[in-house]
């Protein structure tokens, strides 16, 4: 075999001349982009190690399961995914997460827009107010949760201390399954509104000055200008902030860890916390991986959709 190879090689090259041409062009191209790949190599290595590697591992883990605690792992195909979808705790977590996503995204974006419109002009007072509104962003979620834990403390906490004078029966903010999720949502809104405000402030800078002036001359009032110029101009910002807000609603669960552990009675259980519970408390890596895959798929779908909408908008004449 090894003797035959050198003999066949020249025959092949001479008989297929166009392909050789293609080959040289390809090598040339590879040669040209080689430095680029080499430059990317360090980050690629780390991405592979810590991102793609982990994702691949999740994909594999999601396909295996033990029948009984001491039985060996065996391939079960999509059984884990089916088990997750059939688990009422998972569907409960998805419903909670939907309420949480809508209930935090809408108010925090509305507040952010309001703040940005009110503080659009830069002067000393506005700068100070902007800084004040941005402050919650600088506080780590875990620290903020610890603070709110005290604020929500039943009977003796800051909130009950003031509200206690008005209400006959004090709500147990984090201990009542009907209220706990909304108490958690308040923290998210408080923490994120200032952050989204920054994007809207940046978006407002991009509203063309001449169009505004023209509208002004044509006699358009403040509401007309907002409705027909500012809001349409802010559309990409809205889209971007909405995506960020929804991603946050899925990936930020620090306060659930610190404040409620998903309780009482699973009323504040969110999808990411469910995954943690499956992996850590139930020690069920298969089910945790399957739930992770489902979440990843949903998030990727959402991101792809939003990017396409954005691309369409920019591509349109």
């Amino acid at each position: 075999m090894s003797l035959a190879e050198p003999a066949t090689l020249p025959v092949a090259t001479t008989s297929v001349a166009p392909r050789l041409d293609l080959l040289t062009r390809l090598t040339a191209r590879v040669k040209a982009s080689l430095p680029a790949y080499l430059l990317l190599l360090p980050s690629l290595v780390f991405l592979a190690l810590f991102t793609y590697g982990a994702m691949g591992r999740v994909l594999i883990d999601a396909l295996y399961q033990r029948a009984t605690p001491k039985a060996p792992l065996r391939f079960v195909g999509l059984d884990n995914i089916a088990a997750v979808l059939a688990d009422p705790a998972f569907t409960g977590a998805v419903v909670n997460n939907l309420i949480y996503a809508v209930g935090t995204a809408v108010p925090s974006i509305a507040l952010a827009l309001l703040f940005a419109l009110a503080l659009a002009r830069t002067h000393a007072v506005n700068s100070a107010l902007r800084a004040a509104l941005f402050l919650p962003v600088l506080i780590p979620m875990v620290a903020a949760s610890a603070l709110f834990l005290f604020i929500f403390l039943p009977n003796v906490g800051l909130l009950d201390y003031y509200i206690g004078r008005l209400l006959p029966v004090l709500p147990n903010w984090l201990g009542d399954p009907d209220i706990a999720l909304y108490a958690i949502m308040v923290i998210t809104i408080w923490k994120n509104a200032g952050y989204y405000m920054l994007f809207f402030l940046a978006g407002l800078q991009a509203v063309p000055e001449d169009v505004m002036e023209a509208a002004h001359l044509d006699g358009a009032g403040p509401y007309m200008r907002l409705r027909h110029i500012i809001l349409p101009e802010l559309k990409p910002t809205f889209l971007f902030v909405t995506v960020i807000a929804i991603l946050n609603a899925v990936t930020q669960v620090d306060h659930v860890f610190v404040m409620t552990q998903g309780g009482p009675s699973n009323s504040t259980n969110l999808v990411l916390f469910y995954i943690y519970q499956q992996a850590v408390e139930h020690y069920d890596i298969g089910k945790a991986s399957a739930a992770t895959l489902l979440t990843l798929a949903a998030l990727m779908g959402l991101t792809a959709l939003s990017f396409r909408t954005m691309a369409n908008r920019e591509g349109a004449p």
Partner: protein
Amino acid sequence: MLFSRRLMLGLAMAGTMAGALAFPALAGEGPTEIDLFFPVPVDGKLARDMGTLIKEFNEGHPDIKATAVYTGSYDDTLIKTRAAIKAGKPPAAVIMSANFLLDMQIENELTNLDSLIAADGTTKEKFLGQFFPALQGNAVINRSVYGVPFHNSTPLLYINADKAKEAGLDPNKPPQTWAELTDWAKKLTKREGDKVTQWGIAIPCAYDYCGWMMETLTMSNGGRYYNEEFGGEVYYDTPSMLGALTWWNDLIHKHKVHAPGATPGPAVSTSFISGNAAMMMLSTGSLTYVRDNAKFAYKVAFIPRNVRNAVPIGGASLIIPAGLEADKQKAAWTLIKWMTSPEKSAWWSRATGYFAPNMAAYKTPDMVEFLTKNPDAKTAVEQLDVAKPWFATYKTVPVRKNLEDEVMLVLNGKKQPKEALAAAQKAADETLKPYNAETSLKLP
């Protein structure tokens, strides 16, 4: 030239970093290096005390170099230990929540300590005989020793003595039965119209604490909560637990002497310290906190009974994970024996507020002096006579949560005790199913 110096530098750096990741420092000659994972489950300066303890150990044992690694709460410590075992680098010893041992043993994550005890020329009975009998249940599985009790607790009834006197009650004769406790709670609740300004009693309910309190009330009502001999059964849907939950529910919704809803442990202790609740049931682990913060006279007493005096233990044991090299295992065993000796056990107890599991600790002169100065620390030790093991089953945490989720609904007035316990039993049976399929229901 495209391959600039910067690129080369970058490549070189990436190479070094990858190298550093791939080849951790090679173990050199010298003392056996071991890690001890330890949690800090209560407030205080436990981490610093642990540093002092390990430093003293290393000075006395030049052939071993132990390092104390702080690993968060009890639950976090379990997670980190399991991750370390999975990564093939288990720590040599871990201070593990006493009721996680069975679950770990089922998952083959523990070293059986019998051979280490035998190698010391002693017997299991003699070795375990050093510790309070109530603590042995959580350390022995299938008649083999898997853990050594390190620091332990029991639930206590804390009473605000000033408020009791105000209400015409004698704090030196604390309530001994549920009937007396209900009566006390009624007298200690203050109302302004519909509004309660002072609650008679507070009992914590958050994940972890809630299950422990349910076990406390069930045991005081004659029940067992779980099968002590076998990890595949819990007794949620039973008269003893129904009585316990119904009484708790009555305190809230019938007598209105307990704030509604599920209240976590720290909120309960804050409520007690601030005078908002006149009595509370809480761990002995909070005794130091109450002693340091209460601005009023307080009393601690046994948990009152309905059928019998009985409480579960809490706290942690020292374990050796599976899959260690022989020399590390031996070093870990030396460390564990040293840490649970009477002198060290007594010192740790005084530093933390937990009681010392080693009975001989209470005969050391320092401890005798401490107890004369702080007689309230004695109540927990005396209650040990009626203490029983902490619930431990296959998948302890999820099985416990199956109950807690339902109890929380009852405390919030959303379900009646009977149907809640039936639902909890059903959920727990489902969680325990795989284990039973492998054990009790695996038939020839």
